[in-house]
């Protein structure tokens, strides 16, 4: 039992902290967002050089053999600086999925490309109406000779418009909500029959609505076994949730720092407003919430790589519940304590608030995950 970062992780943490402070400032970030590209090529190349893009891949595939704790260190810093590049989409979700469920040829083909920064991938799984239900997939993949024909609609595909390749989930058998009967396919972004609508998100990231109409995919682009993709999807999403929890912690710490600075300097009634006890206690509660969230982000990262499904899912859902609640509290109160400035576009706090809000909505909000924990209690009676 220990909570210490390794020496390497500490070094990584230090250098990322320097990076977001010195090289990813508010204006630079604003320029990246308004370019509409969803990614700054120089920044991405920098990440590749630092080894971040293959951090959790095996060394055989140009990775560093890291784990979810390493991802936590990266994401906490990205949260602190509100980095908008598709790290979650490409490295954590898609990269994690290929690493855990891909075959030799797929790993050899894709992982070095992600690690070098040349390839961007996205996970196209979520569908309209599924909300946070991971097994609800209406998109179908039908056998067509040696190939599959995929048709359906995907929504909220993170950085789907920037990806060269999509990992698409589709139903190969069973009913709409069944966990069995799902399969995963690698689909080229420019394949015939794909339409991608690329949108900005409120927090400066990108999202895509993707429709597939009889898209032909060859059998060697099947990831894993037909009908049995659900555990891999769930695992990838859990890795993503753990990463988001860490990102939220970084953003909350940044929010607390910005708010603290503001209430120490902003004067009203002839005194810094931080002298008022009502604001001091609010700030103390923001701090408590953040510390609790940090603990839970550590728990999530510690369990995210585990193949013990029940244990992993309980930890992930407990973490996302408390982190989501904390993100909401710290986000809202951070804006509140900034007063009128808090609702302007020029304040970093406003941007932190938007990211914290959207993190709660991604892959299950606090209510959804609380229900998971709650139903887990029920399962234990049986």
């Amino acid at each position, binding site marked *: *039992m220990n909570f210490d970062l390794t020496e390497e992780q500490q070094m990584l943490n230090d250098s990322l902290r320097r990076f977001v402070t010195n090289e990813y400032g508010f204006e630079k970030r604003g320029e990246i967002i308004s370019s509409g590209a969803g990614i700054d090529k120089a920044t991405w190349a920098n990440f590749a050089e630092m080894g971040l893009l293959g951090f959790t891949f095996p060394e055989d595939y140009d990775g560093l053999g890291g784990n979810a704790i390493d991802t936590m260190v990266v994401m906490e810093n990205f949260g602190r600086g509100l980095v908008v590049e598709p790290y979650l989409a490409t490295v954590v979700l898609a990269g994690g999925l290929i690493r855990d469920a891909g075959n030799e040829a797929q790993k050899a083909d894709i992982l070095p490309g992600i690690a070098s920064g040349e390839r961007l991938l996205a996970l196209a799984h979520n569908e309209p109406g599924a909300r946070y239900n991971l097994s609800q997939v209406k998109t179908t993949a039908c056998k067509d000779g040696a190939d599959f024909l995929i048709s359906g609609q995907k929504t909220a595909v993170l950085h789907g418009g920037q990806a060269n390749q999509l990992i698409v989930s589709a139903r190969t058998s069973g009913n709409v909500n069944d966990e069995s009967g799902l399969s995963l396919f690698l689909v080229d972004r420019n394949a015939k029959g794909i339409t991608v609508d690329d949108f900005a998100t409120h927090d400066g990231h990108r999202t895509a609505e993707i429709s597939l109409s009889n898209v032909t995919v060859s059998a060697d682009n099947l990831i894993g076994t037909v009908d049995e993709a659900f555990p891999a999807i769930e695992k990838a999403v859990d890795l993503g949730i753990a990463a988001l929890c860490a990102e939220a912690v970084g953003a909350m710490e940044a929010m607390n720092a910005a708010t*603290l600075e503001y209430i120490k300097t902003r004067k009203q009634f002839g005194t810094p407003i931080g002298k008022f*006890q009502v604001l001091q206690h609010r700030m*103390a509660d923001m701090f*408590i919430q953040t510390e*609790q969230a940090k603990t839970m982000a550590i728990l999530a990262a510690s369990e995210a790589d585990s193949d013990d499904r029940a244990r992993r899912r309980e930890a992930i859902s407990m973490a996302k519940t408390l982190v989501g609640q904390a993100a909401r509290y710290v986000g809202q109160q951070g804006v509140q304590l900034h007063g009128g400035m808090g609702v302007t576009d020029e304040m970093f706090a406003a941007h932190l608030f938007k990211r914290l809000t959207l993190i709660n909505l991604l892959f299950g909000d606090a209510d959804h995950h609380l229900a998971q924990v*709650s139903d887990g209690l029920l399962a234990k009676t049986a």
Partner: protein
Amino acid sequence: MDLNYTPEQEAFRAEVRQFLDDNLPDDIRERVQKRLRPDKAMTERWQKILFDKGWGASTWPEEFGGTGWDPIQQIIFEEECALAGAPRQLDFGLRMVAPVIMTFGNDVQKQRFLPGILSGEDWWCQGYSEPGAGSDLASLRTSAKREGDHYVVNGQKTWTTLGQHADWIFCLVRTSTEGKPQQGISFLLIDMNTPGIEVRPIIMLDGEHEINEVYFDNVKVPAENLIGEENQGWTYAKFLLGHERTGLANVGQWKAMMKRLKEVAYQEQDGQRPLIENTRFRDRLAQLDAELRALELTVLRVLTDKRGPGPQASILKIRGTEIGQQLFEMLMEAGGQDAIAHIPEALELDYNGPRAGSIDATPSAGDYFNMRKLSIFGGSNEIQRNIIAQLVLGL
């Protein structure tokens, strides 16, 4: 970073569990698990059993007869004790005055006082709060005037928990009115059998006698019972409060309570279904379960931090007491209307009379009322927020 216990730690846990299986008397276990009225003899008996094993003080270094365990071992020990139904050891001696004596006392004081705390022979209570000095502790007025080789103490302490059993009280007394209020305070150890001391009960809202007022009327205290230096008592007092706060997180006991609460939720009926199938109740239980997990890991994170807990211990006090209060509240609510009957005699071990509802419902409302104290004592949770704002955030 690794949140799993090491094989050595797991082996230690097994050893503690085995010891508890073999040595925790059944009547004590029953009394604790049914949440019956605490009993002085029970606490003393259990302390003696631990003392004989060499485990009398899980948080002390070996040189004073403690176990010398690291923070993780201490937590494992506490948790196993709570889960087994062992009574909580008396904090006032072991966790509060003892660290002060070890750190600021002289050798004579160490030799005189620590053995009695360790064996459980001496029962200690705390003389901090006064009627006019609660959260504003530094405004205390109980005075100690030096006369030859004695101090003469006059004044009144209040909220003295279990003072009715105490052999000794550690007191903050005013030895000077010069300068800031914090500057004239001294830390004095007083024998409760000294003439001029009177203990009067305060009955709490659950009808129980747990706390007291202690009056001092020209009480002569030997000057050798002064800890450290005169007028430096505030430093020692704050040191003690830091130790108290960490203990107040109380994770082991809350984990045992959570286990019981879940069992009750499975057993209690809500119409034609077990209570656990009531979604609203279960969701709140799940929320609390997650918060307790966060508390448990945060305690481990803070206690294993090489920089030491510091003012961040206030987080543990706030969250620990909030979670504890919610556990007792839900345990009461689990009983529903069965919780309304007040049957004080049913809090004794040999009670065989009628009761309203289940055995868990009997103490539940009384416990709930009693536990409102948690967010008030040890520095109210509002004071803790002041501490965080000032010492952690620099506001």
